[in-house]
């Protein structure tokens, strides 16, 4: 695959620009994927969304923009990310051959940089000098602050005050990068409230400010733009799996909060009917407790943060609080394209509890020497189940969306790593 604007990569792998130019499964003109998506937000923001949509329509076929995106992705963010054979994990599970797409190795430690570089370049193209973003785990906030430093943009990040505490390291990184970090105390003081506050900033400062949305959710055109910028994950992985194994995987597994890494991974496989697409949602304390963030598995359709999609709500449409050990998945909404894929049965969404995710966190660490983000550990847990079901003849691809450095404090607490016997708690997870 080669983009028309650049020379092919020597290794023949796709480039990020291929995710923008190779349009497929686009929403309709009003931003709907089937019955999901659209624009459910104040009129005051419609002009700004139209401006972004127009800028994006031009940029996605503008050779100069695409070349710059590819250049930054390769020389700055470190693309392409490798595909790792998880031999010891495979042996441990005793099922399908497990392969890992290594988005954790990107600059800033997750897939978020893929999206942010594109949207920051788009901001510059629109002539705006200030960017805002929401963040849960802090990965998107760090990525946005990084791109803002790189391109010389003013940057403000909104983060729930619960999350600023559990992700203190990422708060420090954002500040060091020059961003203003605003801790949001309203509501549940997590990601949903950070998004509310970012919308409030945007509606006030829309003339000077671009909102770099972090996930493939929100009002049209965000779900499409973020997806296209993340499509490189699946485009690369599909080719890498083919080259390594000579065939397509039986299942592709990714974690789903808002769903950007998952949609970016799934997309290249949508037209491969033999490939199961599995989204791992955060199950918190368990679906039966009601304390979870499994929006598709345990929610219903409504409108939140600009889109018609599945969400967690009570019988009167009040948004209910989500619960997850993972700040990045602790969100009561989900991107509309995932809701659509669930509705048409193309992708399946499963719920992974905190305990299952932390077991998988330790398991991947002990078998492969890869400490994943707790978000990504949800995907590992779901993939281990899928691999056991599929059996030794099969192949399972997991997107490791981020690395776990930011989660050390949570891990210390969970496994009691600061206690003399703490290490054994982690070790039992691999038994």
């Amino acid at each position: 695959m080669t983009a028309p604007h650049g020379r092919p990569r020597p290794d023949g792998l796709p480039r990020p620009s291929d995710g923008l130019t190779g349009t497929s499964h686009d929403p309709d003109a009003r931003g709907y994927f089937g019955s999901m998506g659209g624009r459910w937000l104040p009129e005051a923001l419609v002009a700004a969304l139209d401006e972004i949509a127009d800028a994006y329509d031009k940029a996605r076929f503008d050779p100069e923009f695409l070349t710059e995106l590819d250049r930054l992705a390769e020389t700055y963010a470190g693309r392409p990310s490798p595909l790792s054979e998880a031999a010891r994990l495979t042996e441990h599970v005793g099922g399908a051959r497990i392969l890992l797409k290594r988005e954790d190795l990107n600059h800033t430690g997750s897939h978020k940089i893929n999206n942010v570089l594109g949207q920051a370049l788009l901001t510059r193209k629109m002539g705006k000098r200030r960017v805002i973003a929401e963040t849960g785990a802090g990965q998107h906030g760090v990525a946005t602050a990084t791109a803002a430093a790189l391109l010389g943009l003013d940057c403000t990040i909104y983060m729930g005050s619960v999350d600023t505490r559990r992700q203190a390291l990422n708060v420090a990184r954002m500040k060091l990068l020059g961003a203003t970090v605003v801790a949001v105390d309203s509501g549940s003081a997590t990601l949903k409230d950070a998004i509310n506050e970012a919308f409030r900033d945007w509606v006030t400062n829309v003339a000077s400010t671009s909102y770099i949305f972090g996930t493939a959710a929100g009002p049209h055109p965000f779900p499409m733009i973020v997806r296209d910028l993340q499509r490189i994950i699946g485009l690369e992985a599909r080719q890498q799996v083919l080259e390594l194994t000579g065939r397509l995987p039986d299942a592709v597994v990714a974690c789903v909060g808002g769903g950007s890494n998952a949609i970016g991974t799934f997309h290249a496989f949508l037209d491969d009917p033999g490939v199961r697409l599995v989204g791992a949602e955060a199950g918190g304390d368990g679906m039966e407790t009601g304390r979870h963030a499994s929006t598709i598995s345990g929610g219903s359709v409504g409108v939140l943060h600009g889109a018609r999609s599945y969400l967690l709500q009570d019988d009167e449409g009040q948004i209910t609080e989500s619960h997850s050990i993972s700040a990045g998945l602790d969100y009561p909404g989900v991107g509309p394209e995932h809701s659509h894929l669930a509705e048409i049965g193309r992708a399946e969404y499963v719920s992974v509890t905190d305990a299952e995710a932390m077991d998988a966190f330790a398991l991947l660490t002990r078998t492969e020497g890869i400490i994943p983000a707790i978000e990504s550990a949800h995907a590992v847990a779901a993939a281990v189940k899928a691999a056991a079901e599929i059996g030794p003849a099969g192949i399972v691809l997991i997107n490791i969306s981020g690395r776990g450095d930011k989660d050390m404090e949570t891990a210390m607490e969970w496994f009691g790593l600061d206690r003399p016997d703490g290490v054994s708690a982690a070790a039992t997870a691999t038994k």
Partner: protein
Amino acid sequence: MSERAPGSTSVLDDLFAVTRGEGRAALVGYLPAGYPDIPGSQAVMRAMLDGGCDLIEVGLPFSDPVLDGQVIQAAQQRALAAGTRIADVLRTVESVTSAGGRAVVMTYFNPVLAYGPERFARDLAAAGGSGVITPDLIVDEAQFWLDATEGAGIAPIFLVAPSSPMDRIVLTAGASRGFLYAASTMGVTGTRDQVASSAPELVSRCRQATDLPVAVGLGVRTADQAAEIAGYADAVIVGSAFVALAGGPGGAAAVAGLAAELATGVRSADRTHQETSA
């Protein structure tokens, strides 16, 4: 509850015929139902009527009010924490209309979807409500809502903003009934020292698009500000200033006092400007 005619768009048409006849703007007061508690909110709304509000905007409290500043956010959270349900909101509308007042509901849209749009429109009309202001519903998504409100005979009231281009003002005004809500400034609810300079310009653009009355909200707290807006708009909407008083020590009496001041304000405006711009 007493017998009362169901609310309808014509209640709003009649109101603006009266205020235009009197050469003044209407005064609209907002409060979330259930704040500070359910009986308290009903008492405060009666105080607004007693003080001189022509129309009450009954807020349906929502968990994620993205267009509201801190004062109204906090009031909605408290109303929800006190267990306010949609049935309570409808009963609060009924308490306003039973007292001889006019009422519309202001609501984010997800609760309406959950309740059922047709059912919501019907039940609101039965409670005597005349219309629904929907700050996060744009006309592009609203066809089913236009059908539901038309069926129930109540007014769908949409917002326009300083950022709205002329074609969207025309589109939005064309779908609105009763009045058009002009958000005077880019931003969230909350009182401001000065009314944004973008307000007269926005109202003037609305006048080019529609004969509907144009109501201006976001930021008003003083009689002078009310008089200034009444100089070019058909209605002045006051929210945060009432909400702040409703939860304070003065309670309903303080709210009635502010309403009386603002009612004087909307009657003391220099309307000559409007004649030329209308």
